[in-house]
Structure formats: structure tokens, C-alpha cells
């Protein structure tokens, strides 16, 4: 077993330096699916559960204490349990529900059931991200061995996953020497989803139970004639020597894993004539990007989408340009607060697509109101993350809107065009204070959201402490649904779909400007029991 990383962090440190009396926390670690105890599970450094899943943490400073699990037997997403520790007492009965990682194995076979060796199989997850449902490589990659076998280890349980065989599109030279006649070329290996589907729509999802080892997940690869695309890469209106990169827009390779810094390989560069010829392509939609890097940033970039049908594509042009500097205004919505002079505004922009290096984070701080500009590459989607500091000076602040021309891009992906980006920060936010059974997850959902993708971006969640209290961050005035649940929250369409349905069982509150709305939640909704779709 690998060693789990456990962080036990005490927040709200006590004032004063004298030795303090301490408290203790005890409870059980349970399997989220079966409800059974999990033995030998690491809860903190040198603390593991016994055979019946029991643990006890002692010598803890009084105050709010968080048990954070971030381990190898569970998918490393923060699994936090908040406990109120009282000096000289033991908080008992803390139940931590976890899903243990599982394993998926099988073979990749060709049309004759002959094993295909040396090809990667990815576990693909779906999540709402930057205002759309996107596919991501979820749990790493396994490469088939000489018998066509693959094993995906440490696979996240409880999520719908797709299995995808997709050969990496790395080109060794700019001009492929594949024969001119399609009939005389090797057939291509299509990106194939389990069990033998060419698209996510026809693919079969697999969801592991906690700790499950699923075997026999054989993928039969689809073949097709291998098509070629010839293109000219251009910069400043003339052919240029540029790097290039090909991604299958219909598979996960088009998306960057949220928060990751990898952008995959780029191939060799074209010659000064800008000519490239890429083969081994199959029917589908591909994105061909031309780029030039300078250090860790992208100096020139351009991408085109190309549909491959039943023949080669000729005379494509890919124009690379320097990033556009997006003029941006930051304004107060309404009158400026008293502390306005202290305002420090930052704007991070993270690329969503996989064919560019992540933009260097704009850590520069700007005053409000103020103007700034940031680089954005043509045709690239970005997730904009504005923030205002210091929080203590602006307790009622929130990002009211981000507009670009006539459109709002709040909770959605941003794409460079013409116009000025305008970020408006309001200072009249209110709060929700919820009372619920201790430890419940509290969900706050704006009433006025158009669809699940926006809901996933706009919802606010947190956990009630051991006294059953939770206070939200500053929220825009308006109507909200508030809900308590005992389920783990993520941004998969399954989970967001259940939250969407569960709104009927939520309490509706209206937050007035700068006011704290209180809500009592006696019911804890189990999202797994909500009928999805």
C-alpha cells in the first residue's frame, strides 16, 4: 500500500502563548458505498483505523479542527470533516465516508481479436468546467503490453468514466511520406471508446464501486483509411517556420485537466515554406494549431478546425498571430466603498484548451477602479478568475458581472474578439447562515441560473461544523435555494443533475443587500436517492 498524505490542520489558532488544555476526536471511517468499516486506513500521521474502522485523534487544540484526507486509497480530492474541539472533552461518533480507489483492466484488440500492443488507454471523466460540459483524462493512462493488456490503477470510484484508446498524435517530421493514394496507405487507428465506439455518445460508461477491481474491459479498436491534411503555416501573412500540434477535438485530448500545467507535446516545426502534411487521421474533427514559443510563453498562435470525412484535405492555411492584449476595466458597481483605496484586484486567466501553454498567471495587483490588459491567444478559451483583496477590507464584495461587448462571460469561458472586458465589483453582498445537522454539506444555488453548466459554476458549497452551523461567503443579493446534503459534491453531470432536481426540496431564501439571511435545514437530502433524469 502506498503511503497516504494526511494533513490535520487546526485553524483559528488560539490567542495567548501559555500551554492549553487539549481535546480529542474519535469516530469511524466507513465505505461510502457499502457502509462497512474500513480497516487500516490512515486518518492522520501515525494514526490508522483498527479492524472495525475506529480511530481516535488526541492532543488536539480546542477550536475548529479539520480532518483532511488526501490519500492514495481515495482519489486525492479534499475530503474534509470539520469538528469543534472542546478542551478536556472527546468529540465522539465522527463518521468519515470514503470511496476507495479501484482498478480497471482489460485488453485492446483489433478487428481480428489480435491484441494491440503499445497503445494508451485513458480513463475519461466528464465535468462542468468554464461553463460547459468537458471531458478530461481522469485517472492517468495505461499503455497496453505485448499481449494488449492494460491496467488502470488508482481509479476514482463512484464516477461515470469512459475508457478511451487514443494514439498520441506526435509527428516526427513536418511532411509525412505516406503514399499519395489513400488506398496504398496503412489504415489509421481511430480514437475508440469502450467497448467499440467512435464517439462519447455511443460509448458505455463504467462506474466503479468503492475499491472495485473491474476486469475484462476489452476495447475493440476501430480502423479507418488513413487520411492526410496538407497545410501552410503562416505568420504575418506569409509562410513561416512554426511548430504545430494536432488534437482530436471530439476526445478529451482537446481539453486541459483543470488546474494542470501540462499542455502535451508539440511536434517538430515546419520549414520556412510553412508546409506541413499530416497523415494517420481518421474521420472526425481535428484542431491544427501553429505556434511559436518563447521561453514558457506562446509568442504566436493560431488554430483551425478541420473536418475529416472520406478524403484528404488540401491547401489548408493556419494563421498564427501574436496574442491580443485585452483591454480591461475594473469598476465598482454603485458607489465605491470606504476602503476603496486599499483595493488590490488580480485577474488570472487559465487556458481551457490543451494546445497552448498555460498563460503565465497575472499576479499583478491593480487598483479599483482601474484599467489593465492581459494577453489572450486567438481561438483559445480561457477561464477568467478575478479576485479582490484584502478580504477583511471588503467583507461584502463579490464579482457582480464580467462583460465582453454585449455578452456576459461570468461563469463561462472567455474567447478573445473585439471589445473591452469589464469587471464590475459590487460591495453590497449579503450572507447565508444555515443551521443544519452537524457535518452536513450546505449547497447554495442561485435561483436564476439558465442551465446545469452555469449552476455548476455559480453554486456555493461548504460544510456545517460540529455544532451544525455554516456561514457563506459574500453573495449577490437575490433569491437562492439552500440545501443540506450528506453526499460528496463534485461537478460531474450526474452530481449537478441531482442537485438541479433536488432544488424542489430546498428552502428558498432572499438575501437583501449586506444582510445575513438565516435558514434552518432539518432535512439532509441524500443526492444518491434523488432520481437523476
Amino acid at each position, binding site marked *: *500500500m*502506498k503511503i497516504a498524505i494526511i494533513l490535520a490542520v487546526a485553524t483559528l489558532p488560539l490567542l495567548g502563548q501559555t500551554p492549553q488544555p487539549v481535546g480529542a476526536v474519535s469516530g469511524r471511517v466507513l465505505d461510502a458505498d457499502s457502509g462497512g468499516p474500513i480497516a487500516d486506513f490512515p486518518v492522520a500521521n501515525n494514526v490508522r483505523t483498527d479492524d472495525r474502522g475506529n480511530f481516535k485523534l488526541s492532543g488536539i487544540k480546542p477550536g475548529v479542527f479539520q480532518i483532511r484526507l488526501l490519500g492514495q486509497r481515495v482519489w486525492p480530492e479534499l475530503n474534509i470533516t470539520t469538528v469543534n474541539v472542546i478542551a478536556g472533552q472527546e468529540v465522539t461518533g465522527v463518521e468519515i465516508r470514503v470511496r476507495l480507489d479501484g482498478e480497471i483492466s482489460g485488453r485492446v484488440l*483489433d478487428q*481480428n481479436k*489480435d491484441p*494491440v*500492443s*503499445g497503445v494508451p488507454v485513458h480513463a475519461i471523466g466528464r465535468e462542468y468546467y468554464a461553463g460547459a460540459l468537458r471531458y478530461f483524462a481522469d485517472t492517468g493512462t495505461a499503455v497496453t*503490453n*505485448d*499481449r494488449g493488456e492494460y*491496467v488502470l*490503477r488508482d481509479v476514482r470510484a463512484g464516477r461515470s468514466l469512459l475508457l478511451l484508446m487514443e494514439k498520441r498524435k506526435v509527428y516526427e517530421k513536418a511532411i509525412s*511520406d*505516406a*503514399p499519395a493514394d489513400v488506398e*496504398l*496507405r*496503412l*489504415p489509421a487507428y481511430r480514437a475508440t471508446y469502450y467497448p467499440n465506439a467512435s464517439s462519447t455518445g455511443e460509448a458505455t460508461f463504467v462506474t466503479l464501486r468503492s475499491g472495485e477491481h473491474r476486469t475484462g474491459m476489452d476495447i475493440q479498436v476501430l480502423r479507418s483509411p488513413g487520411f492526410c491534411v496538407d497545410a501552410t503555416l503562416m505568420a504575418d501573412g506569409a509562410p513561416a517556420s512554426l511548430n504545430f500540434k494536432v488534437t482530436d477535438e471530439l476526445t478529451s485530448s482537446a481539453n486541459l485537466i483543470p488546474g494542470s500545467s501540462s499542455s502535451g507535446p508539440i511536434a517538430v516545426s515546419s520549414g520556412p515554406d510553412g508546409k506541413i502534411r499530416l497523415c494517420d487521421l481518421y474521420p472526425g474533427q481535428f484542431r491544427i494549431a501553429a505556434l511559436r514559443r518563447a521561453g514558457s510563453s506562446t509568442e504566436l498562435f493560431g488554430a483551425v478546425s478541420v473536418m475529416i470525412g472520406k478524403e484528404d484535405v488540401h491547401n489548408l492555411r493556419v494563421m498564427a498571430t501574436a496574442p491580443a492584449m485585452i483591454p480591461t476595466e475594473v469598476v465598482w458597481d454603485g458607489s465605491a466603498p470606504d476602503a476603496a483605496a486599499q483595493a488590490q484586484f488580480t485577474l488570472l486567466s487559465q487556458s481551457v484548451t490543451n494546445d497552448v501553454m498555460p498563460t503565465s498567471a497575472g499576479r499583478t495587483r491593480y487598483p479599483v477602479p482601474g484599467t489593465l490588459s492581459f494577453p489572450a491567444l486567438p481561438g483559445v478559451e480561457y477561464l477568467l478568475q478575478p479576485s479582490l483583496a484584502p478580504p477583511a477590507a471588503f467583507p461584502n464584495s463579490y464579482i457582480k458581472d464580467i462583460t465582453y461587448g454585449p455578452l456576459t462571460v461570468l461563469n463561462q469561458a472567455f474567447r478573445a474578439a473585439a471589445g473591452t472586458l469589464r469587471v464590475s465589483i459590487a460591495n453590497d453582498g449579503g450572507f447565508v447562515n444555515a443551521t443544519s445537522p452537524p457535518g452536513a454539506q450546505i449547497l447554495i444555488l442561485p435561483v436564476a441560473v439558465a442551465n446545469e453548466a452555469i449552476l455548476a459554476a455559480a453554486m456555493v458549497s461548504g460544510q456545517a461544523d460540529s455544532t451544525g452551523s455554516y456561514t457563506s461567503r459574500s453573495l449577490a443579493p437575490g433569491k437562492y435555494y439552500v440545501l443540506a446534503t450528506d453526499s460528496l459534491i463534485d461537478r460531474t453531470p450526474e452530481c449537478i443533475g441531482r442537485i438541479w432536481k433536488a432544488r424542489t426540496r430546498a428552502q428558498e431564501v432572499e438575501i437583501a443587500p449586506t444582510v445575513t439571511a438565516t435558514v434552518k435545514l432539518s432535512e439532509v437530502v441524500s443526492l444518491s436517492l434523488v432520481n437523476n433524469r
Partner: protein
Amino acid sequence: MWRIVLIVSAFIRLTGATTFAGRVVEDHSGNPIPRVEVRITRIHASGPSAELETDADGRFRISELPDSEYTIRFSKADHSAVEITTHGRAGMLLWLTRFGAISGKISDFEGHPIANAQVAALTPSEEIAGTVDMNAPSGEYRIYGLRPGSYRVAVLTSGGVRSRRGIALYPNNSAPRDFTVSGGEEYTGADISLAAGPVFRLTARAESTEARSVLFTLVSAEHPGRQLAQQLVPVDRPFTVESVVPGNYELLASGTSPTNSSSFGRAPVNLVAANLDDIHVRLDQVRSASFSLQLREPCVADALVELKTIEAWLGRPTSVTIHAGKLVDLTALAPARYSISAEPSRGDCYATVTREIDLTRDSASKPVEIVLAPLGSIQGYLTGTARAVDYVVVLTSRYGSWQRICFPDASGEFEFSAVPPGSYLAFAAGRDVHWAPSRQATALEVSGGTPVTLQLHPPDGSR
């Protein structure tokens, strides 16, 4: 030893529009091999005229190519590749060698599986072959992609609290088993139990007047390419390693001085049954070697020579550019075994050079000669048979695993063109004959430029 097995039966020479057709089968079983990639390239052309795959029955066929001589390359992952240069032919039967595999389980002395151990197959020259397996939580491992040859299975590192410094061979270090792969072997049950046994401590000090700090590396004498411990210490402090299993080791030390000059030392260590706490390594062992470059017509270029230590000395490879007619000395080299590689600075020439030099005891006594030569060729004739067209001639690289095949004409003449300079084995093969090149092949050196002449006889008793 490995053997190349090849059957070419009922080759039919066709005229007019060119057709290639035939079947590819597994050398050890005779089973058809589907999805073999067949690339057909017109001689002297840059890209293939046609690419195809064998079907489920191992068959391939392409017709109506323009009449010419073609090179056909047959390849599939985990199999040896074969290249044939010929005019159109039907009825070809090709035998590809499937690479071997070894699998087993790793456990500790109590039988508990050990996960995340690094397991590898080592060649007689200590190189890692095939895949390196970081084994599963169940302790199981599988190494595949083993070309014909002889291998030992070694656990190179085993992580976790029970880690011991030392390389563990299957089934044990005193009598390791040699696995022979000739084609398609699938060895199972190579289970390795990491024995309990005693472990000891080594402590060493460097003796140097100049060095400020010393990088110590401990390697086993039998597998010097794998470091077992490495530590940078100030020159007045000892280097200590715990948990070393008994055996023969080499301690490698490189010192760094304020003037940035390097000094080196090495000492053999024989760990038997007690801690060794007073090893002294004198940093006074510096080596040199000189290099010269020879050009064969029409090559005109410099050569970039790279020296890499075979032992696990830390440091980047040393490289130097060499011009023709001028000796270049490399000094301040560590007392190590080196592998040498050379590349021409430009052009289509190939560099040939001795693969290895040993400077552990002394500096090189004579210059290392690098030769830049163009692609060579082999012109030969098959004697001792009236029916030369019933045979094929096979050329195999001595250190690799690809084969080239050509067809003698009725008078027995044959030719391999565009052969990179290097060492080769060549032999004639008849119909339905299994061939052991170690016994019957002719070794030859292709130096580039001038053609090499070769006379071959048909195999004994083949017809």
C-alpha cells in the same frame, strides 16, 4: 544463442507491372501474424510507394506497382524487423521472431508481496533490455520485448521500509539463472524472494588536498551501471551507507575544488560479514584519452564524439569536436569504463568507432580512431550450387535484431546496397531450413565507401 529463422519458399519472379504477395508467420510456432506493417519503397525513393498490413491469416498482396526494384520492410511491435530488396515477387513466406517475456512475483522473506520494486532484464553486458517493470501491488511483474539473447532478471530497487541496498538476481545472486530467448519464449514463475540475511554499514573518507566536497557513489561490481547509494559530503566528513547486503562493490568518488578542477578516485570494496568503517579513497586517479578522425571519400565533416561512463558516475557525458588530421586530447577524465559514440557534424556519412574503452586502471595507450564513411555496400556471389535462385542471402546486424534479405541471380551474384558502416553477419538460406547464424554465418565489417566483397556457400545439407 539466438537464431534467425527464415523460410522463403516458392518465390516467383514476375515481370511487367510489379506484384508483391505472401504471408508472414511466427518463427517459433508457424502461426500467421496479422497486422504486420509492410512498407514498400522504390529503391532510392524517399517515401514508400505503398503501405499495407497483413490480414488475419498473415497474408499481404499489392499489385500494379511500376516495375522497379523495391525495398520491403516488415515490422510489428514486439517482433524483429525484416527488410528485403527485390523486384516483384509472389508467394513470399516470411518468418518474424517474436520477442520474449519473463514474469513472476516479488516478495519479502516472509512471503508478503513487494510493490513498486523496479525489475529489469539485464544483458550479459549489463544493459537493461525490454521493458522495466514497476510491479503491481500484488508483487507481480512482467518484462517483455526481449530480443533474442541471454538475460538475467534483477530487482534493481525495492522501495519501502524493508529496502536493502543491493541487486537481487533470480533466483539468487550466487547462482543466477540465464534465460535464453530465441523467439516467442514466455517464461513464467520467475519469483524473487528478497532474502533476509544480514546487512552491513560502509563508511568511507576521501583523501585529497584540493577538493572541498566529494560525491560518493556506491555501485555493485557486477552491475556497475546501477547506483545503490549516492551522497555529496564535505571532504572532511565521512560517507556512510547503511543496509548494504554482502558482496563486491566499487566506491566511486569525484571531488570538486574551489578552482573548479575535478579529481577522481575509486576503490574496490569487498563486504563479507562485518561493517567496513575505514575505507579510504585517494582522489588522485585522473585519466586521459586522445582521439583522431579519418575521412573516407566523399565525407568531409567534423565529428562530435561523446563519452558516457558505463558506471554510474554522476555527471553529463563528455563531448568534444574532432577535426580530421588533428589529435584531440581529453584530460581530467574519471577512471571509468566509457561507451563512445560519434556523429558527423553534417552530411550523409556515418561514424564508426570502438564502442567501449576502459580507463579504470590507466589512460588510453593509443588514440581512439573515429572513421567517417559513406554508406557501404556488399557485393557477393553464391558458389557451390547450380541453382542459386533457390536461395536467399540474409544480412543481420551483429548487435541489433533486424534482417535484410536479397535474392541472388541465376549466376549466384547478389548485392546489398546502402549499408551503414558496421559489423554484420551474412548467410545463405535455402528453402525449409532453420538457420543458426552463430555456426554458419560469415562475419564481416562494412567500412563504407568501397564495396565489400563476399563469397558465400549454400548451407550444408540444405538441399
